[in-house]
C-alpha cells in the first residue's frame, strides 16, 4: 500500500514537471504531427520528373518521336537540348540534370539492329533511387510501328497487393509510427532520469524510502500514456490526411504498441543508468536511432541487406514493430499470426529491463 502510494507520488511529480516544461509537452504532440506532415507529403519513392537533357545527333522523325514518347512517360522532365555529349556530361557533373539522353547519328539503323542499343541513357548514379527509376525506361518500346509493340502482352505481370496505387504514405506511415515512438519513448525516459542525476535530485530520492522499482515504474508510467496518445495521434492524422488504411484490428495494434513501448522504455532506462549527462543520453539515443531508421526495413527493404546487417536489424525493437504495424494495418494480419515479432519485443523488454534494474542501485558507488 505504501509502495503504491510512493509510486503514485513519483508519477504525480513527473506529470507536474512535464506540464511545466512547455517545450517537452509541445514535443509530445509536435513531433508526431510535424514529422508525419513532413514525411508523409515529402517522401515519395515513386519518383517522377527527373531533370533531363538530350542530344539528338540523328535528328530524324523517329528520334523526335522517341523524345516525345519519353516526355509522355512523365519519368523524365526534359529541360534542355544540347549540341554534344560532352556538354551533357558537364551538365550532369554540376548537378543540373539527373538523366542525359544521347541519340546517336545512326539511331534509325540501330533501332532495327537487335545487337546494338539504339539510345544511350546516362544516369547520375550518385543517387541510387534515380538509377533504379531510370532503369524503368529500358522497357520503353522503340519501333517504326509503335502500335504493334503496344499490343505485346507482358511476360510477367506485377500486381502490387495492399497498396495498388503505390502511394508512398501507405508504406511510410506505419513505419514512421515506430520511428517516432522509438525517438520519444527512449529519449524522454533516458533524459528524465539523467536530468535528475545531473540536478542532484537523485541523491535526495535515493535517501528516501522509495525503492528502485517504485522510482523506475513511477517515472515511466506517464511516458507509457504519452506513447499511447502519440499512437492515437499518428493513426488519426494518417487516416484523415493520407488515407492510410487500418485493415486489421486497432486493439491488436495497441497491444503490439504496448510491447514496443515497453521495449523502448526499458532501453531508455538502461541508457539512463550508463549516461552521466543529458548530452551523453542524447548521443546514445541517436546511436540507436540511426540504425533504427536505416536497418529496420523502414527505408530500405530488409531482404536487400547482407546477413550481418539483418542480424543487427533483428536486435532493434523497431524492426519487429514495423513488421507488426505493416502487417496489422495494411495486410489485415492478426496479432497472433505475427507472434514471433511479439515474442522478440517481449524478450528485448525483459532483457533490457533486467539489465537496467541490475545497474540501477540506490547507491552512489
Amino acid at each position: 500500500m505504501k509502495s503504491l502510494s510512493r509510486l503514485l507520488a513519483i508519477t504525480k511529480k513527473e506529470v507536474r514537471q512535464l506540464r511545466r516544461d512547455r517545450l517537452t509537452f509541445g514535443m509530445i504532440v509536435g513531433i508526431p504531427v510535424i514529422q508525419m506532415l513532413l514525411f508523409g507529403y515529402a517522401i515519395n519513392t515513386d519518383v517522377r520528373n527527373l531533370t533531363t537533357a538530350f542530344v539528338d545527333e540523328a535528328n530524324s522523325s523517329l528520334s523526335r518521336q522517341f523524345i516525345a514518347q519519353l516526355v509522355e512517360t512523365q519519368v523524365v522532365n526534359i529541360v534542355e537540348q544540347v549540341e554534344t555529349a560532352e556538354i551533357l556530361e558537364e551538365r550532369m557533373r554540376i548537378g543540373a540534370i539527373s538523366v542525359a539522353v544521347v541519340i546517336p547519328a545512326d539511331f534509325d539503323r540501330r533501332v532495327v539492329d537487335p545487337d546494338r542499343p539504339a539510345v544511350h541513357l546516362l544516369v547520375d548514379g550518385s543517387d541510387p533511387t534515380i538509377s533504379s527509376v531510370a532503369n524503368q525506361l529500358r522497357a520503353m518500346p522503340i519501333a517504326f510501328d509503335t502500335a504493334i509493340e503496344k499490343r505485346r502482352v507482358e511476360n510477367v505481370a506485377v500486381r502490387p497487393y495492399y497498396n495498388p496505387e503505390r502511394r508512398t504514405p501507405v508504406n511510410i506511415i506505419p513505419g514512421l509510427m515506430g520511428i517516432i515512438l522509438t525517438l520519444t519513448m527512449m529519449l524522454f525516459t533516458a533524459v528524465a532520469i539523467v536530468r535528475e542525476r545531473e540536478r542532484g535530485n537523485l541523491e535526495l530520492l535515493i535517501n528516501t524510502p522509495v525503492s528502485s522499482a517504485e522510482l523506475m515504474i513511477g517515472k515511466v508510467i506517464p511516458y507509457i500514456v504519452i506513447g499511447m496518445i502519440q499512437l492515437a495521434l499518428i493513426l488519426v492524422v494518417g487516416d484523415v490526411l493520407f488515407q492510410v488504411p487500418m485493415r486489421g484490428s486497432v486493439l491488436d495494434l495497441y497491444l503490439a504498441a504496448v510491447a514496443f513501448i515497453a521495449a523502448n522504455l526499458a532501453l531508455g532506462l538502461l541508457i539512463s543508468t550508463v549516461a552521466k549527462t543529458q548530452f551523453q543520453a542524447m548521443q546514445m539515443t541517436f546511436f540507436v536511432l540511426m540504425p533504427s531508421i536505416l536497418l529496420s526495413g523502414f527505408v530500405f527493404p530488409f531482404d536487400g541487406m547482407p546477413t550481418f546487417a539483418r542480424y543487427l536489424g533483428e536486435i532493434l525493437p523497431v524492426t519487429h514493430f514495423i513488421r507488426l504495424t505493416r502487417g496489422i494495418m495494411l495486410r489485415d494480419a492478426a496479432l497472433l499470426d505475427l507472434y514471433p515479432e511479439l515474442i522478440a519485443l517481449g524478450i528485448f523488454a525483459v532483457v533490457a529491463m533486467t539489465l537496467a534494474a541490475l545497474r540501477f542501485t540506490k547507491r552512489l558507488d
Partner: protein
Amino acid sequence: MMMNNDYAIEARGLSKHFGDLKAVSKLDLSVPRGQIYGFLGPNGSGKSTTIRMLCGLLTPTEGSADVLGTHVPGSTHDLKPKIGYMTQRFSLFGDMTVVENLQFISEIYSFPAAKRKARVAELVEKYDLASQRKQLADTLSGGQKQRLALACAVLHQPELLLLDEPTSAVDPQSRRDFWANLFRLAEGGTTILVSTHYMDEAERCHRLAILDHGVKVADGTPQELQAGTGMHIIEVTAEDPYHAQKALDQADVIASVTQLGMRLRVLIPERVPDPLGEVQRLLKAHSVAADAQLTTASLEDVFVAVTMGPEERVA
C-alpha cells in the same frame, strides 16, 4: 546486534578508498543522541564521504557503523524513514513550488495522509516560507532554498539529521537563523550530524570531530579541544605584521604563525618553558616593535595545531 541507547551513531574503523585515494581512513565515531555533532574539516577531508557511508549511499571499504540500530554496510531500507538528509547541493525540484516540494516529500515518506496538509502548513510557517508558498524552488534565494531543504529533511520527523555543509551557500544572517533552527530541533530530541568548514559554526556544536585528509585528528567538546591543543598560544600585535612574521617563522621553537589582520597567532609546543620570553626575544633580535601576550586557544588554533604535520608539532 549492538544496541546502545546513548549513541545514535557508533562507527568503528570506517574507511573508504577510491582507487589510491583514501578518502576516509579508520574512522571511529560516537555521536550521542540528542546532540549536535560537528564535522570540521577543509574541502576534501572526507566529511561528505563519511556522511554518505553512514546513510548507506556509499559502501565502506573497511569497518562498519551502527546507525540507530541499523548495521552499515547492510540493507538501509529500514533506516531511511528514520533519517533526514540534506545534501551539500540543493537537491529539491526546482520546477516545483515550495508547497509542491513539501507535499511530494510527505507522500514519499508516507506521512499519514490526514495530517499531510497540516504538517506542510506548519513547516511553511515555522521555516518562514509563507510568502514563497507558490514560488518555484529555482527562484528562491540561497537562504530560502536552504530553509526549504531543511523543512523537507525534517518533515517526517526523523530521529537523526545528516546535514552536509548546509550553510556553505548562504549569508551570515541566514546562517544564524539556520543554527537557531538546529538548536530547536536538538532540544526536541533530534540527533544532528553537521559538516562544516566554518570555525564559528563548529564552536556551536555540542561535540565535534576534526577531519584532515580522511583521518580524524581530534574530537571532543569545543572546550576540551581548546584546552588540549598541547600548544601555548601567543597573540602578537605589530605595526608591521609582515616583518614580525618573518622574524618568528625561522625560529625552531615556533610551531606555526598565522596572520589575522594586524595580529599574529603564534603556536609554540607546551614543552617550551618560557614561550612568551622566546617570542619577545625573537622580535627584539629582529628589531620588530610588537606587543606579545599569552592567550587561550580558539577553535581556529586547535584546527591549526591538529592539522599540522608531525615535524612541525615537535618543532
